[in-house]
């Protein structure tokens, strides 16, 4: 961003001399040198960005018609569904958009895990990504409370009550979160205010994420550094068009759900108005929280469970230093490659356990899954020490060492 670009258009040049927005845009969205070997797993960053925009746009128009008051919140959502022009479309885009935002982000995170995108010099890039993920979880949780259905109310009660596990200050924290002595109107009001605020915090974090990305440059499937211009392509048109292909496919799946199975990710119970006197037979959070919910329920001790649940995310911040291997991409790490798939399978297993009543085998499976989740991290350190990585290619432009050996 140090030197300014010259533009043909006089007005553009006039603005750019005073405020270098066009130089910044050209630098980061047009010329940005991108590794030439990125595969389609690299689409999910831009897809997550697209979902953030869709969520904010639909959310603003929903907020114009929503009423954050326990007496009328449920009916105001139904009014959006029935009487507001295009209201059903806005709400289904927003509710399913949350799920697809998480789908994009989860694939993005696991892509980073597989190709070692968290390793030096990308530690802060990884941290900012995790900060976005945490803020997303808070936003999604509070958003789910707003329709004020049965699962909204009881989900909010269960999750906020977790903080009571902390000794001495726990109950005070919960009262402070609720704004009273139970989940009630003050809780709904503050959740609405924060649900509207946090997406803009996410925008700020995304900008920092992009600044960090453009400073250290994108990782790539080989996990080796960019050696020179022969390894890269300008972002535009090569990756703008490739991202658009991803956008097309992703929108097809997302909108197919919106139009033909809009309640697929939802719980029927949330179409019943919140009733503090009736507890649902089973309280389940949204699917994207299920693995953590399973970890929480696998620990017999309440405080221990809460600590493990938060620890499961906190530990990800230390990943760049836990992983002792210098090689980034799992392509060249025969053992890590397999452990990665086991870890992914374990996350699905935990998700399954989180979705089912903690009875019988589910408890045992959940505990095994939790143990496996936390075993992954020390194992990662050991693997880096004992594993013999396969030889790395010289550069991205010459990925094949010998003609016979295919990567």
């Amino acid at each position: 961003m140090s030197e300014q670009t010259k533009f043909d258009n006089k007005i553009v040049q006039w603005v750019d001399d005073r405020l270098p927005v066009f130089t910044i845009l050209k630098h980061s969205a047009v010329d940005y040198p991108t590794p030439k070997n990125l595969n389609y797993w690299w689409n999910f960053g831009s897809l997550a960005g697209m979902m953030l925009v869709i969520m904010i746009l639909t959310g603003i128009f929903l907020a114009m018609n929503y009423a954050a008051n326990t007496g009328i919140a449920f009916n105001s959502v139904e009014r959006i569904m029935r009487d507001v022009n295009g209201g059903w479309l806005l709400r289904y885009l927003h509710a399913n958009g949350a799920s697809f935002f998480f789908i994009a982000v989860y694939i993005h995170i696991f892509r980073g895990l597989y190709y070692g995108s968290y390793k030096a010099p990308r530690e802060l890039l990884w941290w900012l990504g995790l900060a976005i993920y945490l803020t997303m979880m808070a936003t999604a949780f509070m958003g789910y409370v707003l329709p004020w259905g049965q699962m909204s109310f009881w989900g909010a009660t269960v999750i906020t009550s977790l903080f009571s596990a902390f000794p001495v200050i726990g109950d005070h924290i919960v009262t402070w979160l609720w704004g009273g002595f139970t989940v009630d109107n003050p809780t709904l009001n503050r959740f609405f205010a924060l649900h509207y605020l946090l997406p803009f915090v996410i925008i700020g974090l995304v900008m920092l994420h992009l600044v960090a990305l453009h400073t250290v440059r994108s990782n790539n499937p080989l996990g080796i550094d960019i050696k020179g211009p022969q390894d890269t392509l300008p972002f535009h048109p090569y990756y703008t068009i490739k991202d658009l292909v991803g956008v097309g496919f992703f929108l097809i799946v997302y909108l197919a759900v919106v139009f033909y199975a809009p309640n697929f990710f939802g719980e029927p119970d949330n179409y019943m108005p919140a009733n503090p006197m009736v507890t649902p037979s089973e309280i389940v959070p949204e699917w994207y929280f299920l693995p953590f919910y399973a970890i929480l329920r696998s620990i017999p001790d309440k405080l221990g469970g809460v600590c493990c649940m938060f620890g499961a995310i906190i530990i990800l911040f230390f990943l760049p230093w836990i992983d002792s291997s210098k090689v980034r991409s799992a392509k060249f790490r025969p053992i890590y490659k397999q452990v990665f798939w086991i870890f992914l399978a374990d996350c699905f297993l935990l998700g399954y356990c989180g979705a089912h009543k903690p009875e019988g085998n589910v408890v045992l499976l959940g505990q095994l899954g939790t143990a496996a989740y936390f075993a992954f991290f020390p194992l990662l350190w050991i693997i880096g020490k004992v594993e013999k990585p396969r030889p790395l290619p010289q550069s991205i432009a010459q990925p094949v060492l010998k003609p016979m050996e295919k990567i």
Partner: protein
Amino acid sequence: MRKLILSTLVSRRGHNTNDAGAITLPKRIAGAIRSGTIALAAVGFAAAMAPAFADEGPALEHQNWPWLGVFGKYDQAQLKRGFQIYHEVCSNCHSLKLIAYRNLADIGFTPDEIKAFAAEKSVKDGPNDQGDMFDRPARPSDHFVPPFANDQAARAANNGALPPDQSLIVKARKGGPDYVYAILTGYEDAPAGVTVPDGMSYNKAFPGHNIGMPQPLTDDVVTYADGTKATLDQEAKDITAFLNWTSEPELDARHSMGLKVLGFLVVLTALFYALKRKIWSDVEH
């Protein structure tokens, strides 16, 4: 199902690395991990299959509803028959608070018919110029007038049980329309040895089987205005269709818009892909 796919995926990965043959030192560790992978896949498979995990109520039989599928839409004649059942049977106990009389235009009733339906009920309005509250006939803009003044009155008249509002009943139950249909056709004599509490009925589809609602539908409980033969099965299907409409009145618009949007997106994505191939054709990769 998800677990199943994953299991195959995991074991396939294991084979791939085996083929590569580039592992020298940690063969034993890799072997152990491979066994671990298979074990985990097996556990996942078992978890997906084990009937012990089934925590749902009685299994529901899937009905072939006309509005299912990409081209699915409501059958207006059926919705009108369903409304007749709600009007003559269900509305004696169940409210439908989210629906206004004017909404009946969507299922084919004329403005005069709608005015007549609304005028059957009276609502409290006011205050008037003298400051008094007064009763007036309901208008098309009013929401359906509930059968009871409040929940307590509804319970008092129904043996302590509260008949739930039906506006969202299909979306608020696991199994949706299949569940509602199964309840309406699930009444039978209690099996030998099972005692049903006083004032309750035995229903094979209801969780716990003892249901507060007496059997609402039997053959010929209504005489259809359009001449359709009113069997229990026909009535149950028609009222379920009507209640699906009250839950999802936007369904027809949603399905037809979806077709256009997805059709457009498929073409757009194909164009994007062709353009991508064109732009990347000069890149060695």
